[in-house]
């Protein structure tokens, strides 16, 4: 034993926890200031633990199990949709970067604009159907088809 530690310190605490504290260790603890403190602290904390555990209400394991299952499903879903989120972010960045050049191109009046029938949009009145070209109609039809297919794909699980 020295002023900082005692070799019996762990033995005293372990014996008290196990309920096997014998007269020899008790006599040692009475004479040793280190073990005396350890004995007091261990005894008081053990009593506190016993009374605390009696008073505590803990939720059933099934509650935790269901909560963890829901969490795991969320994590699996997030992992599975990670590529979709990455592509979406890339598309947004690309659109943001490309927007100025597209605007510049459109401001010069691109050569393909008349084919879309958009050249006359500003002057369209009630007879707007006449302004549509075959390419425009085809584009609109393809867009509606793609919207329908993608909606069905995303909502089919529900």
């Amino acid at each position, binding site marked *: 034993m020295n002023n*900082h*530690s005692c070799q019996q310190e762990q033995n005293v*605490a*372990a014996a008290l*926890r196990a309920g096997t504290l014998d007269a020899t260790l008790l006599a040692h603890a009475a004479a040793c200031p280190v073990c*005396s*403190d*350890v004995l*007091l*602290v*261990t005894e*008081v*904390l*053990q*009593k*506190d*633990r016993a*009374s*605390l*555990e009696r008073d*505590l209400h*803990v*939720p059933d*394991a099934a509650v*935790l*199990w269901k*909560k*963890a*299952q829901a*969490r*795991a*499903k969320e*994590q*699996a*879903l997030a*992992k*599975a949709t990670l590529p979709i989120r990455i592509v979406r972010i890339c598309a947004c960045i690309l659109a943001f970067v490309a927007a100025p050049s597209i605007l510049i191109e459109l401001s010069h009046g691109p050569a393909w604009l008349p084919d879309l029938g958009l050249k006359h949009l500003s002057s369209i009145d009630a007879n707007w159907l006449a302004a549509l070209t075959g390419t425009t109609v085809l584009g609109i039809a393809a867009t509606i088809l793609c919207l329908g297919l993608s909606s069905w794909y995303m909502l089919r699980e529900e």
Partner: protein
Amino acid sequence: MILELALRAPSDIEPLARPARHGPLAMEESAFRAFHEQTARPLLAYLVRACGDRHLAEDIWQEAYCRFLTADIQRMRMDDRQARSYLFQIATNLMRDKWRRPKEEPLEDDTPEPVAAGPHLDLKLEMRQAFQRLKPRERQLLWLAYVEGSNHKEIAHCTGLRAARIRLLLFRAPRKLADLLRSDARHPEITK
């Protein structure tokens, strides 16, 4: 007892499409029930005393179990003691995260006070008051060492402290708590 942890290949991560053998979690439900039975009360008691706030302790307790169950431990095989140590480690880390957050109200123990006076209840109250006067880290170490019976290696694993620091803290903390108990004591068993 070795806890049965499912060894799942990456291709098995399809809990939404069809249930995996043990669901999306890595541990069997029956094994978890047994584990919960062994650890739930000791863990909550540790958190209540180390946090000093029962509501916070219950939040951390639930979160610790959720993280334990959803952790990437498929390829590990743990015995009971390792699994218990891992759970306490998660809880200790969560507690530390709460303490590190700024702008939090100081933690206070809102555990209902004993309503009737008596020697036993006085002793409990004195113990709680003395324990709450210790630093959080000291409370953690004292509880793990003298209540849970963890050795220095397990405490190091749980708290992230080095063994030398643990030795030093575990020399000082019991003396400090014993002094606090003796200075507050109105009971012969404490003042001896």
